[in-house]
């Protein structure tokens, strides 16, 4: 379900342009309002829908489940860490959902430069950089022991 913008609600703040991972939210050159330049290339992450502070971005449902006359609206409440969805079908049915915000907080991910540079001997190891600590697996990586293999496998 690609996204679209209500021109009357958008105030051209540019949050959606900054956040779109597909780089398809842009500012219209005439009206200075955001629009989805290529709905076919929208991978439907809804980052822009959730980030829009004016609730100006909406979702166009596919015709098979939400024919004309439907509405899919989302409300993001940072203070409650919730995202609420309201789906209205053309026949009047309505569905409401509430989910937690699961995105990673801005600036909370360490950049690669913040880690120590790999030592020469690290290049001959099977693990990738910063493993196993970055995998957060207690007790190190799980290994397959030869004595526990099924009979006939080796």
């Amino acid at each position, binding site marked *: 379900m690609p996204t679209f913008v209500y021109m009357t609600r958008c105030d051209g703040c540019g949050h959606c342009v900054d956040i779109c991972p597909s780089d398809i939210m*842009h500012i219209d050159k005439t009206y*200075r309002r955001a629009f989805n330049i290529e709905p076919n290339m929208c991978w439907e992450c809804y980052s822009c829908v959730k980030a829009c502070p004016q609730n100006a971005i909406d979702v166009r449902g596919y015709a098979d489940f939400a024919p004309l006359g439907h509405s899919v609206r989302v409300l993001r409440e940072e203070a*409650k860490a919730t995202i609420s969805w309201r789906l209205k079908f053309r026949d009047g049915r309505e569905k409401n959902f509430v989910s937690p915000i699961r995105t990673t907080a801005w600036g909370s991910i360490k950049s690669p430069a913040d880690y120590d540079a790999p030592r020469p001997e690290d290049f001959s190891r099977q693990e990738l950089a910063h493993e196993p600590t970055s995998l957060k697996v207690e007790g190190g990586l799980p290994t397959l022991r030869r004595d526990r293999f099924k009979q006939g496998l080796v």
Partner: protein
Amino acid sequence: MFAINPFAALSASISPALMQGYVVLMIILVAAGTLFDILHKGSARYFFDNWRRSKSKAQELGGGELMSIAMQTAVVDVLASGEFCNMRRRIAHLLTMYGFVIYVVATVAMVFGNPTTDLWPHLWWIGALLILIGGYWFWFFIRVDVAAEGSSPFRVMRADLFVLSLIVSVTLGVIWAWLQASASAAAGVFFALYVIATTVLFGSVPWSKFAHMFFKPAAAFEKRVSNANGTRANLPAPADKPEQFGTRVKHARNY
């Protein structure tokens, strides 16, 4: 320089009646341009259509409630530019808006009243400086095509008509007043440019976003009414249960 009424000094070469006539003409242009804008873009029809549509599905609001919503709109959305979510944009808008109001009122007071007090010339300069700070800040750093799209601040298009004519007009006005106070020969040239830029500002209302000072409060009012009467423009109601899923944050960190 800041205590001199620039329009009184100008009355030696241009009659006060002509200046007053020009100000009246600009007011007429703004009124006519706004009416044309409303009819041409159909913004009033859109507003009342929305209003009627939401009324049929909504719970009835009392007169007192509507008055309270109107007061909230006036105080929060109009006087404090409450609709802006980006603090930089909000501050720049407040500077430009209050600067413009002070500047226009002081200009009208000086052109029509020719007051002897220093207050109006001082207010004229303060208003002009507020517009210039807010306007140039917006123009070079906050404008969405510069801040989000990475375009050059010198790329000009029709959407810039209002803010560009405003800051050019005020910049030229300030330069003219300064040159006139220092008895420079170039003051006349800058006065002519000032009049041209001001005429563009007030005469371009149908093509610029000057009229937003009229339709934006109406839109803010409609948004508050739709929240109060339950229609909420189809948006979900605020989450109640569970009230807290994760970490509560006061300000947007996830964007």
